[in-house]
């Protein structure tokens, strides 16, 4: 939109809108430092809920399981999703392409209850013992679709002729991918990994369906506690999670911004050097 003066109405709606988005989280964080067990009454500042969290074995176990599932499924989903993005962006038409792109886009809009139920029934039919690995496979499956979409948009924005030039000069396809394509799409791949990781960290429904005895993830633990009521301890867990994600996202965006500036500077310098 062409620049016109921002009106008071615009500013008010922005302030109200962003307060609506952020106030609940801010309140949750503030009340995690509440000394009183009654969550709605302020009893002074205290970090005791964080200390009691450190002694809560079950919560720590759940956190450890969640992190392990997150790391493995995000890594696998990034590999599979990047392959899928290469197929969609670079392989043109092939037999079964419509089905393939359908299977990539469908999980993005599919209700979680259906994804969870269907995967559980598959694992039962395969007579597979459920637990860590089944949750990991389930998370990989839906996260790879998000990765594919993110990486594909990055691939679409970069010049295919670079790859073609490398291959014309005799560089084998695999080497071309690692030396030409991957460095270009790396920000997209990294964003895809982070997205896959947070999706896995966040998921309650699919994990509940595909879990087995012994594998309780953090969202499942939080959910079972929430059903019993709001406690400052859950507020503390949530605050830690929100903190990790916020720091991660902001750091990532700062890094990409710096890399972009660096690249632009390099290009300018190369250009200037060329002029001499």
């Amino acid at each position, binding site marked *: *939109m062409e620049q016109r003066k921002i009106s008071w109405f615009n500013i008010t709606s*922005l302030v109200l809108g962003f307060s609506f988005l952020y106030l609940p989280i801010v309140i949750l964080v503030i009340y995690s430092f509440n000394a009183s067990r009654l969550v*709605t009454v302020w009893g002074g500042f205290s970090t005791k809920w964080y200390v009691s969290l450190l002694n809560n074995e079950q919560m720590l176990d759940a956190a450890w399981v969640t992190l392990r599932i997150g790391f493995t499924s995000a890594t696998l989903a990034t590999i599979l999703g990047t*392959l899928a993005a290469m197929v969609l962006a670079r392989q043109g038409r092939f037999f079964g392409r419509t089905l393939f792109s359908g299977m990539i886009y*469908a999980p993005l*809009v*599919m*209700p979680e209850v259906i994804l969870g139920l269907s995967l559980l*029934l598959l694992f039962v039919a395969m007579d597979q013992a459920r637990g860590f690995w089944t949750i990991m496979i389930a998370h990989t499956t839906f996260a790879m679709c998000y990765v594919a979409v993110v990486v594909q948009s990055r691939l679409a924005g970069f010049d295919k002729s670079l790859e073609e030039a490398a291959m014309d000069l005799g560089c084998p396809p695999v080497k071309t991918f690692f030396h030409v394509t991957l460095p270009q799409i790396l920000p997209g791949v990294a964003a895809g990994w982070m997205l896959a990781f947070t999706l896995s960290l966040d998921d309650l429904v699919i994990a509940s369906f595909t879990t087995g005895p012994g594998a309780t993830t953090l969202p499942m633990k939080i959910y079972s506690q929430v059903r019993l009521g709001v406690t400052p301890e859950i507020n503390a867990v949530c605050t830690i999670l929100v903190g990790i994600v*916020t720091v991660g996202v902001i750091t990532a965006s700062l890094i990409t911004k710096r890399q972009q500036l660096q690249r632009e500077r390099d290009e300018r310098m190369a250009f200037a050097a060329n002029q001499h």
Partner: protein
Amino acid sequence: MDREVHSQAYTKSRLGRWALIAVPYAWLLLFFLAPFVIVFKISLSEVVVSIPPYQPVIDWANGLAGVLDTARQWSFDNYIWLTQDAIYFKAYLSSLQIALIATAITLVVGYPIAYGMARAPKAWQPTLLMLIILPFWTSFLIRVYAWIGILKNEGLLNQVLMSLGLISDPLIILNTNAAVYIGIVYSYLPFMVLPLYSSLEKMDGSLIEAAEDLGCPPMKAFWQVTIPLSVPGIIAGCFLVFIPAVGEFVIPDILGGSETLMIGKTLWVEFFRNRDWPVASAVAVVLLLILVIPIVLFQRQQEKQREAA
């Protein structure tokens, strides 16, 4: 010889191409498509008290004869059951209704935000965009949970309203449909704002200036110029909120009450509490059939957008 090397390389690259396609393809066939076939299959079987709690529907062991034999035993009883118990019909209808109303509220709440973002100085826009996307990265469960403390009878909202003297008795919001609407609007707001912002941001501001120069009052210019030009954003945003909201489980379960009837919750209860896997599968198949319509419409609209661009 040169030719031979070339054809070898050609065969190799073709093999490579098929290997590249085959790996993600096989994964999705096994872990996305096959499960749906199984859901459909189990929705046609009968519930039994055992582990797993359903009768196998296809007897693969006896080959084709066994398959044909069991195919004759397929029953649509679970689907007939869905039509006989009014609770399922009501749950589907009320899910659609709740999702529709929540989508409309999200549009009304989201539009001024997206409009304000598009009007903001260019230098602010990346930061504002980041602020809209950031909540999307934080846990859905946590964001829904955060509302319990606010909406409770003795929660913050009631405390504030009562201390201001606006109300004398606490408003009962938690465990009602109102809380579900708040939850959906809150959780899905970024999905609405992003497409709206991207269509408003592209808009040519001189069109409004032209309208105003020609004596069109600002409100009229907004309704007759801005709104029609942002229709693609409105459609995309509404689909992005509506489709996932229909099958939502976490929000109605945590914020809703006994009056809240949503199909995602019904499926969950059918599966985990009643342990009736065949009926849960039938519920899932019907939900999928209902959602296919908006999903296909959405995909079409997106393709049209892409062609127009």
